[in-house]
């Protein structure tokens, strides 16, 4: 192989190496891309459910939707966590408040974070929260019991085939969060 051929080969080698490095980066780029997809379709871990949103919609009293509330805890840890009402009948466009109750039985001061999720997943883009205990980590002193409110509006543009929404929270404190990631 002569020198110029070898140079050509090296050039192509570097190009292809750069290409695979780019593919490696693309693997990571799939993470934000996936979030974008989730925002569009409502599927996936509903990031937007943990964000405050504002909505000025006209209430639509002609439609009634059942909203169910679920409280979950990871397998490890020691908490009490439940919704005060198991479900509500709501009209789209109207503001409602639902309350959850949490009690710290861990025997120490701790910080907990609620992670929301929703079924069916496609309703996530239409479910807006103006206030939620899941927006920020919650501080609990030892043995403290507290009501945790969530205020929400369901967008009247929600697809007509939806008659039931489930809003679920999983409650992680520092220990369970670490344990859950193990």
């Amino acid at each position, binding site marked *: 192989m002569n020198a110029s051929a070898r140079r050509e080969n090296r050039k192509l080698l570097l190009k292809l190496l750069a290409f695979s490095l780019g593919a490696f980066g693309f693997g990571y780029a799939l993470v934000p891309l996936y979030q974008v997809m989730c925002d569009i379709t409502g599927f996936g871990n509903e990031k937007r459910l943990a964000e405050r949103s504002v909505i000025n919609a006209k209430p639509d009293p002609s439609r009634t939707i059942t909203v169910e509330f679920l409280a*979950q*805890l*990871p*397998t490890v840890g020691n*908490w*009490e*966590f439940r919704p005060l009402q198991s*479900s509500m009948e709501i009209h789209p466009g109207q503001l409602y408040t639902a309350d959850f109750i949490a009690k710290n039985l861990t025997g120490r001061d701790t910080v907990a974070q609620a992670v929301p999720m929703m079924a069916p997943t496609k309703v996530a883009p239409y479910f807006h929260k103006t206030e939620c205990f899941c927006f920020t980590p919650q501080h609990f002193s030892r043995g403290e019991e507290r009501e945790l409110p969530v205020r929400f509006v369901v967008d009247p543009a929600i697809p007509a085939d*939806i008659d039931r929404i489930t809003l679920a929270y999983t409650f992680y404190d520092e220990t369970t969060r670490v344990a859950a990631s193990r």
Partner: protein
Amino acid sequence: MIRKALAPIAALAAVTSLFFSQGAHAESGWHLLNMRQGVTAISREIYSLHMLIFWVCVVIGIVVFSVMIWSIVTFRKSKGAVPDTTMVHNTKVEIIWTAIPVAILVAMAVPAAKTLVQIEDTRNTELTIKVTGFQWGWQYDYLENGVRFFSRLERKADAARQLGSGVDPNTIPNYLLDVDNPLVVPAGTKVRLLITAADVIHAWWVPDFGMKKDAIPGFVNEMWFNVDEDKTGIYRGQCTELCGRDHAFMPIVVDVRSKEDFQTWLKATAEAQKQAAAPQPAATAHAG
């Protein structure tokens, strides 16, 4: 056809199994060849899609394999066949054998998409049960009624399945397909399951209901089924997503009862649970 073709193999295996198995089988499995039709409208629809695509494949297979076998038998050098080396390309034929599959696929895709739309129609459900998979069992939670319980592999089977237990699984009825507390649901009712998991991913599957859904920690998946009014009985399934050491040992059993029987069961169970438990924390984690 398949049965016939496999007869010699089956016979061979049957003879071998006589040598190897201890005791008689609880039930023979030779007849288990195809998907079940199941007991819901959706499961029957899936079954007919399955049979449709199966027969499409069989027909294509017969045509393609016939051509191949014909070639193998006819165009042999030993029979003096002379190759037609000019035959390298034929646009007309190539267009035809691209177009025909396209048509078949479209014909397949339409009914399949229709079934998907039906499956995704979650309106008008009458009963919601939360299903939580954990390592290794299921928890069922009748949200409106406060009834909740764990469902684990039945004890005798659990003892028999231990390595070197010495117990012949054939002596245990419904080995690995029986639980201590089955899920009880009413027939003729659109039952909605909210499926999630506590630790790793599991999947909830009862073949007779035609549906399978992953139970994913941090997600709530939705799935529904509606068992025919006259199909009360026991239906069995298993976890179908690898979930660790005892993945094979977390069966699902559903006891489908008439609406009245179900209500009676629900009331009795709710009452019993209330009495059994002092004021119970609503969602205290089941320490696993």
